Every structure is written in structure tokens, then in C-alpha cells.
């Protein structure tokens, strides 16, 4: 009960003005990000603190607030065509059907003639069915401290409806398989000033950057940790972020330019990574540091 209350208070403050109540300060402000020179004892304390916080939040994950907004937006008639996604958008399981859809993407969609991850598919529906302009969505596709785009809420809503379901990217589909193989090559592609590829950090087992463990996305276990918790509520900055965002942030740290939003490149990379996590259980939208 107490945990729920703390969670609710935090969540209220997180969402801020979007809820018609006086926003309260978070009950437990997340520990500030340790300075780069910080020693391990401090980092370990921060890690413990975070794990504790995450455990406390398990029952009242701030992601649920975004999920609720997403539910409204999924069902509401919106856009220039005044159509709801619930009555028009097929995520691969039939129009309007969202149960288990997230864990079965990326998949090939014949109407778009493209392999699409969940976020890309919902964007496609918003553009094709509701009449929103792609460029408007792509202008500000990800959340920051003061803004959360509708697409983030929608992805969170759809992802939540795959909670505790088995990941099942349809790799037997030749188009999906092709995307997977291209994604694998993208992951191996070294370039840029530091000669980095995705695999520089995420291609072998048991490595760390500083204290951060690096999952090997070529393995089922490593791929799962790359999938789990996305979309996720990120403590740093207090923002809800999607898997697409996470892929972009990897390229940023790789010193690459930015992948275009909802592009083949990101969809193929996600096909490779999520496909490698096939058969394991997705726990739903999560909390990230």
C-alpha cells in the first residue's frame, strides 16, 4: 500500500502538468548521476539504490501513466481523417488487435511492403490511416524533460499488451529473415572516427564500459537484455523512451550520424536483436536508469 502511494506520488510528479492535480515533488528523488571520476563504491551504492527503487516501483511503474495516455489516444478519433487507430490500425494480428502484437514485431507488412518494428508500424498507421504528416512526427519523435510525443504513449500502450508474453519475431518469413541478416551486417559495420560498430560493445560476452555491463546481442540472453525494459521510463531526466530511441543513442555513442526515424536501418537492427531474443518472455514497459 505504502509502496503504491509512493509510486503514485512519483508518477504524478513525473507526468507533471498533464494530470489535473497539483503535481507533487517525487517522494524519492533519484540519485544524481555519479560524476565520471566517481569511484566504484559510490556507483555501487547508486546501483543498489536504483535496484531498490525499481523493485519498489514494480507495482506502480511510471510507464503505466504513459500507457494510460496511449490507451486514450489509441481509441480516440484523431488526425485529419478523424479515425481511431483502434478501428484502422493492423499491427499484424488484425485491425485494432493489440494483445501480443508487440512481441511479434518486427514483421513484414504487405500493405506497406516493409519490415516494421512496433513504433514504425504505429507511425505508419498514424500517417496512412489518420492522415498525420510523417515529417511532423519525425520532427520530434522522442520524449525530453518537457515533452512526450503521442507516438511514445502509443508504443508504451501497445507494448504493455505484450507483458509476460513470449517474444516471437516471425523469422521464417523470408522478408523478415532478409531484414534480420541485413541487421546483423549493420551491427558488424565499423566506421566513423573511432572505428566502432554495434558489436564493438555488444558483440562479445562479459564486457563492461566502466561499470556498465554490455550485453552480447548475438546471444539469446544478451539480446533479451537489449529488449527488456523498452519502452522504458528513464530515471535520468525522467522521460519515457522507446526502443527506437535506444538504437539511436547507441549510434550516437558509436560516433555515427543519426539514424533516420522509423527507417529500414533501425527496423532491421531491431529485427536482428529482437529476433535473437525469440522464445523468451518480454516483461513489458520498464524502468531504466
Amino acid at each position, binding site marked *: 500500500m505504502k509502496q503504491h502511494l509512493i509510486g503514485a506520488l512519483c508518477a504524478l510528479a513525473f507526468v507533471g502538468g498533464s494530470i489535473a492535480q497539483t503535481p507533487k515533488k517525487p517522494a524519492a528523488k533519484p540519485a544524481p548521476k555519479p560524476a*565520471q*571520476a*566517481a*569511484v*566504484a*563504491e559510490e*556507483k555501487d551504492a547508486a546501483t543498489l539504490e536504483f535496484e531498490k527503487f525499481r523493485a519498489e516501483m514494480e507495482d506502480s511503474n511510471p510507464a503505466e501513466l504513459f500507457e494510460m495516455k496511449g490507451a486514450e489516444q489509441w481509441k480516440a478519433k484523431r488526425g485529419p481523417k478523424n479515425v481511431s487507430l483502434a478501428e484502422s490500425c493492423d499491427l499484424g494480428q488484425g485491425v485494432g488487435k493489440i494483445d501480443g502484437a508487440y512481441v511479434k514485431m518486427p514483421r513484414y507488412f504487405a500493405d506497406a511492403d516493409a519490415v516494421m518494428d512496433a513504433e514504425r508500424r504505429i507511425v505508419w498507421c498514424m500517417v496512412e490511416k489518420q492522415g498525420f504528416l510523417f515529417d511532423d512526427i519525425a520532427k520530434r519523435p522522442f520524449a525530453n524533460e518537457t515533452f512526450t510525443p503521442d507516438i511514445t504513449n502509443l508504443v508504451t500502450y501497445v507494448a504493455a499488451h505484450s507483458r509476460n508474453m513470449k517474444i516471437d519475431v516471425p523469422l521464417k518469413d523470408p522478408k523478415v529473415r*532478409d531484414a534480420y*541478416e*541485413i*541487421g*546483423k*551486417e*549493420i551491427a*558488424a*559495420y*565499423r*566506421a*566513423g*572516427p*573511432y*572505428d*566502432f*560498430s554495434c558489436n*564493438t*560493445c555488444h558483440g562479445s560476452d*562479459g*564486457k*563492461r*564500459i*566502466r*561499470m*556498465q555491463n*554490455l550485453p552480447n546481442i548475438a546471444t539469446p540472453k544478451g539480446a533479451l537484455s537489449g529488449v527488456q525494459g523498452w519502452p522504458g521510463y528513464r530515471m535520468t531526466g525522467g522521460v519515457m523512451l522507446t526502443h527506437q530511441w535506444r538504437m539511436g543513442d547507441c*549510434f*550516437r*555513442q558509436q*560516433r*555515427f*550520424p*543519426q*539514424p*533516420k526515424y522509423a*527507417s*529500414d*536501418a*533501425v527496423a*532491421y537492427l531491431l529485427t536482428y536483436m529482437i529476433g535473437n531474443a525469440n522464445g523468451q518472455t518480454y516483461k513489458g514497459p520498464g524502468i531504466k536508469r
Partner: protein
Amino acid sequence: MTKKILLAAAMATPFLMALPASADGDHRAKAIAVIKKDFQPRGQAGLDRLAEDGLQAICNRTGNKPPEYIAKRMQDDQLQTVKFPADGKLMGDWKEGEKIAQSGRGFTWTDNPGLPVGGNCYNCHRIAPKETSFGTVGPSLYQFGKIRGNTPDMQKYAYSKIWNAKAFNLCSEMPRFGHAGALNEQQVKHLVALLLDPESPVNK
């Protein structure tokens, strides 16, 4: 003449044999096409960064396992690119080196290109024992100089390795810090001191 052809054949064979190691050229070609169309410049990270240089292309094409003789030749080429300080001194101030080793900033699209770039060293290496937040992508460098000494040859090696790691291991995961323009001669000297100076905590 015959000898020449033979030599060429001998050289070409291992290269061709090594190519299939990089899984599959068809999907690699598709991947490159996708990368070319699906990225946009942001901040200091321009699209020019997507192009492979010769070394990257060889490493990418061979799954980071180039045939020995190619690796040797290209490593030698990389070694030629190392710029040594005019005064010939290769050891700077280890305290400055520690600061550079700590910093991981630079070269991302969110970094201010006007600010100095860090060495990123602790991201991947254990170095001075006081810093316990270190990565493990690279080997531990703790006691680097204590074990190896700090002879002129060792200084030259450490300097060259930091300037261009690919001069010693063609497809090393380690960036070519001097070659990439991330670190200048002075900064590399400080890092050499961090590794080799007997007074550096690395060697205590």
C-alpha cells in the same frame, strides 16, 4: 615473371579464402545501401563518417580477421602515420594523463566540437588502482610500466599504440586516437606518462 605471378597468386589466395569469413557479402552490400540512405547528419556527426576507410573495409569484410600478410602490411602503413613530437620527448605529465584517461567526452552528435576530446581510457581499461569504475573491453593496464619498464623503445611503443592502435593489431577494437584527430601529441605524451612514469599510480 613466373615468380611474380606465383607471388601474386600466393598473396591473393589467402585473401579470397578469408572473405567468406564475413558471413555474407550480399547482405553486407544491402546493409551498406541501407546505411547510406537511412542516416542523417546531426551536430558534428556528418554523413562522411559512414564511409569505410581502407582499414575499416578490410576488417569489416573479413570479420575482423584479415589474412596475416595483409594485416602485417596494413599495420606497417598505419605505423607510418604516427606523428612524434618534434622535441623527441614522449613522456609528459601523468597527472594530466589521468585527467585525459578519465574523460569519455567527444565526437558524438551531442558533444560541443569546440571542447577537447577525452581519451576514453577508463571506459575500457583498468589503469590506476584508485579508479575502480573501469571497463573490461580492453586489457588491464595496471602496472603497465612496472612490468615493462620505461625504456625509449617502450615509450615509443606506448605512444604509437595510443596514437594508432591499428599499427599493432589491424582490427583492434581500440580507436586510433592520434590518427582520428581526437588526441594531440601533448595529450598522448601525458597518457604515456600515466602508463610508464615510475611516479604514476599505475606503477606504484
